[in-house]
């Protein structure tokens, strides 16, 4: 009655229907029926976990490595940027300081009635036995031998040698330098000579003159080199000997020779700048 072919088709249809029904039923429940799912979990999950760990660690190494490379690159870039900023900051700070110094010098230049040439210290004598500096202005700029060198704080020295573009300045503290000076308050006169270290000695001050520690010593203008009234230093120590007609006086210069960077060279001879007699 039924052919074999018809029976096969009917079985297939029934199986499809049963399958659809089962799917419909299972889709209604959230939990997996019986312990099939749990068994699978127990068997597969440890492998999954290990594999996942492995993948994660590889991924982690991969990511971290590239991250580190990136970080290293970024670090380098940031370091460069920081160094650049530091350089700029340092340049700004230097400019600011130079600006302050130059303003100070400019103010001094306006105050002083003599023509002056601004110069920069470019070298220092390495020998401890002579206190000289080299400045970047020479005869080409109007610097002459014997010209006084000053800064706003006071007398710095005298030009002892000048080439076309450079000049050698003998500092006030060199034992070979001497300035005819007087004490501002009492007008006691003497010769200020370099002491070699950072001090000067004030020679030939008569014992009869009353001078005190802290008094200001200024140039007298009588040496024909330094104009009158330039500050030299302040009296640091006085020794009145029992014998002799002079006192032993030591003077601390107003100029800090360790940080001398810019100076003014008075280009006009001092005797020309002395006030004329009425």
């Amino acid at each position: 009655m039924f052919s074999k072919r018809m029976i096969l088709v009917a079985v297939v249809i029934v199986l499809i229907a049963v399958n659809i029904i089962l799917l419909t039923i299972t889709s209604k429940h959230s939990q997996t029926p019986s312990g099939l799912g749990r068994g699978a979990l127990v068997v597969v999950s440890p492998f999954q976990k290990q594999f996942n760990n492995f993948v994660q660690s590889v991924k982690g190494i991969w990511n971290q490595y590239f991250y580190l490379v990136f970080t290293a690159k970024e670090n380098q870039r940031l370091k460069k940027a920081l160094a650049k900023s530091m350089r700029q900051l340092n340049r700004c700070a230097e400019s600011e300081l130079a600006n302050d110094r130059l303003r100070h010098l400019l103010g001094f230049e306006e105050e002083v009635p003599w023509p002056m040439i601004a110069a920069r210290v470019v070298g220092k004598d390495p020998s401890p036995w002579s206190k000289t500096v080299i400045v970047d202005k020479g005869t080409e700029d109007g610097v002459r031998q014997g010209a006084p060198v000053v800064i706003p704080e006071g007398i710095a020295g005298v030009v002892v040698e000048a080439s076309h573009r450079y000049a050698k300045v003998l500092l006030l503290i060199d034992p070979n330098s001497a300035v005819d000076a007087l004490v501002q308050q009492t007008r006691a006169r003497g010769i200020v000579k370099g002491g070699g270290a950072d001090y000067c000695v004030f020679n030939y001050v008569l014992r009869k003159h009353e001078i005190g520690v802290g008094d200001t010593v200024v140039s007298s203008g009588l040496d024909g080199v330094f104009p009158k009234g330039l500050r030299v230093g302040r009296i640091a120590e006085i020794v009145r000997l029992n014998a002799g007609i002079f006192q032993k006086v030591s003077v601390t210069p107003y100029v800090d020779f360790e940080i001398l960077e810019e100076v003014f060279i008075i280009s006009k001879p001092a005797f020309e700048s002395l006030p004329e007699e009425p």
Partner: protein
Amino acid sequence: MITGYHLLVCLFLIIFQTTMMAGVPAYLYDLLGPFMVYLGVHRRPREAIPILALAGLAMDGISGGVFGVHLTAYLWIYVGVRWAIQFLHVGNVILLPLLVTAGVAFESLVVAFSAVVLASSTWPVGSMLSVVSGQVLWGALTGPFLMLFFIRGQRVVDRARTSVLTEKDTLRTH
């Protein structure tokens, strides 16, 4: 080439000690002293004398001390070292530093003597001892290392010269 090297070293030392080391304490010695010892040990008079004369004149020109004192010191260091190496084995680890120290001490004494005795306005004699002893000590500690630098520099220059000459010869033969 070697003359260029010597001139460069002199120039560098002079610039270095007049600009970079301007603020250092007084007991730092003249770095050209060990260089003169090096010239005395390793260079013949016709090579060394022009260099030491130039260095001496440059230092005297820059310095505010008695003119000619550096030139004198360098010349006598050179002569002294040439004399000493006739009977001293200067390759010795002890003798070479000793020679450098003696050179630094000699120069220090000559310059100090000129400042304390010869200068128109002299320094107090008491200051001589402390400055000279400090300079000699520093010279003894650092001078031999400087000397080694000079020797190493000379070797580098010699090698470069040899390779240039070899290359020239090779090109000529081809």
